[in-house]
């Protein structure tokens, strides 16, 4: 015979276990894991919701060094002058996971961002602007790395 109190207690225990294992996916939902797990450019773009082949565009600017002495810290800046840009995306083609970062463009911020990335080896770096209609516009630049950032 189980009392009401015992039943309630079991309910709380189960809820607590679920919360502990992350089965309540509050924050996991927001993060686009598929895109960040993608191993190449095409897969990453598809997971981000871009349609069609990306086009080279002068309206997207990528600022990156020609030679990075230390692959663990490569300064990258991305900017765009296209209208109706929804996302700006940084990708390093030869990294184990291509996608580095996505920046959401809102009316309150300029479509211009800068950060630093790790690069495992010399590779093409892509700056991609995804517009409201799902088209992807890119700028790319080859960055030579003299010391990799992914080794031990």
């Amino acid at each position: 015979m189980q009392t009401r109190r015992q039943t309630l207690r079991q309910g709380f225990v189960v809820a607590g276990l679920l919360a502990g294992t992350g089965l309540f996916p509050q924050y996991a939902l927001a993060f686009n894991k598929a895109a960040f797990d993608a191993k190449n450019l095409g897969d990453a773009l598809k997971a981000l919701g871009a349609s069609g082949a990306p086009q080279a565009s002068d309206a997207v600017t990528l600022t990156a060094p020609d030679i990075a002495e230390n692959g663990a810290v490569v300064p990258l800046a991305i900017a765009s002058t296209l209208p109706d840009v929804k996302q700006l995306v940084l990708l390093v083609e030869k990294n184990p996971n291509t996608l580095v970062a996505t920046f959401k463009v809102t009316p309150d911020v300029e479509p211009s961002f800068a950060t630093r990335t790790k690069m495992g080896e010399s590779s093409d770096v892509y700056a991609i602007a995804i517009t409201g209609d799902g088209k992807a516009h890119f700028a790319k630049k080859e960055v030579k790395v003299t010391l990799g950032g992914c080794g031990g």
Partner: protein
Amino acid sequence: MADPMRIRAQAQGDKATVRVLMSHEMESGQRKDASGQIVPAWHIQEVTASLNGKEVFSCEWGPAVSKNPFLQFVVKGAKAGDKISVTWKDNRGETRTDQATVS
């Protein structure tokens, strides 16, 4: 608990440039430790920023962003005295928020 972020926000005309330096290991999940075990990934996934309590900016990061990440963005319509707060959340669910005043 992670160390505080360093945030600088400087107004230029009707917009403000915000520079943030976060303190985070940003482990890539590719590295191996001395015994040959892969060190699990541990990185910031989401960064959001708000101006006077209203969210204005968000981004998502993979493990390829450098250790102790740097981030720069420009907020429109911000003036001296406004409050900028920045929040990050990592893949272990840890989070930290810091605030700065636009100067």
